[in-house]
């Protein structure tokens, strides 16, 4: 327990929390409603998450 309290993650939560939200925008409002500073990064997986298409695009130079 003592080790957990000393961990960087635990230290982080003792200070003001600031969040970068990646992907699903729905989390942004929940965090804002809790008074937490949040920056949203509009991101989706490459090729809509289709690994075969993503691999093909990589070969085509994207």
């Amino acid at each position, binding site marked *: 327990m003592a080790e957990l309290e000393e961990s960087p993650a635990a230290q982080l939560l003792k200070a003001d929390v600031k969040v970068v939200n990646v992907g699903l925008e729905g989390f942004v409002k929940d965090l804002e409603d809790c008074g937490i500073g949040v920056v949203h990064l509009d991101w989706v997986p*490459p090729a809509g998450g289709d690994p075969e298409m993503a691999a*093909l695009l990589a070969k*085509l130079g994207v």
Partner: protein
Amino acid sequence: MKLIEDANKEALKRILEAEPKLLDVIPAREAIKGLKERMILHSGPPITWDRMCGPMRGAVAGAIVFEGWAPDLASAEKLAADGGIKFHPNHHFDAVGPMTGMTTVSMPVFVVENARFGNRAYCAINEGLGKVMRFGGNDETVLARLRWLRDVFGPEMSKTLRLLGSVELKSIVARGLSMGDELHQRNVACSSVFLREVAPALARVSTDKEVLAECLGFIAKNDQFFLNIAMAMAKTMTDPAKGIRGSTVVTAMCRNGTEFGVRVSGTGDRWFTAPVEMPEGLYFPGYSEKDANPDMGDSAIVETVGLGGFAMAASPAVAGFVGAGSPSSAANFTKAMGEITVSQNSEWTIAAMDFAGVPTGIDVRLVVETGLQPTINTGIAHREPGVGQVGAGVVKAPMGCFTQAVRAIAKDLGVS
């Protein structure tokens, strides 16, 4: 992949080097090689009568009566259903048409030539707003206007343009962008600039004051007059970029109210199609999304050269008109389209974006990679034949067209 990058550079070079000029207005039968009696050119990729949407059928029936191939709308529909009319896409005949895109032999068409490459493209004259054939209208008021365009306005414009020699179009577009047009759902600035350029010559060739006043008034009252000229211009710009092996740059996007079609440079004249999507937008009083037809028209050729939804930042007023959000959010659309294009057009700049050029050269690879579908500003037609326009909005090009294109290019290059 170097072959693709080099091919795309060449495609962009050809698009950006275009020198489109408006030369004339002449009957389609004189302008369009291969266009014959009982043949109708329509918007979008190929489609048969049985799969056409309501407004397309309404426009077809009206066009048949207009040409005198049937005495009334009911007989016209029967003629079409019985196979008495040959249907072909405008794009197969160097032409384009907004919404239903009807082009038949006696309709006057704008003749635009790309002086850099010598190719031409054609588009019928914009009829104005309200009940019009491009939105599926087909009653006597619609046909009477088409007869006036054929018998009066077309010949007057032909004499005017022949006196002028030609009208250079890129500079009009550049000025329009700086005056709040995006060239798809807002053309009021370009239409006004065009009127200023042709009015003196129109006055000189006209022998009848009333006819002159009617012609001037027709252009002046139609904020979308320039759209059809811009469409023919855009087609002359992209056609020289067709057929460059390995190029992933889009050369045409269009819709027939049932399917969306995309052409890509590296695959030439092949269509990649997918079911067309419904526009999201605002409706005129008394109408709602329940009345709306799925998206249609060849007008997405303007987005293909970086205008329309791609140039939304130039036209904050349009963002509100098409229900795309606040005027201050207009730039977001242009920035997003910058993610899926390979370059900008330095001749067409947007003041509100520190004079950045409009995003140009849609790369099918980037569309699929990012998931950002091309944004198209569009009018919305009523789903029933004969009603006309009921609103305006924004529609996305279906992702299926672009994934098919990526696979086709990969196959052609032996990549798997």
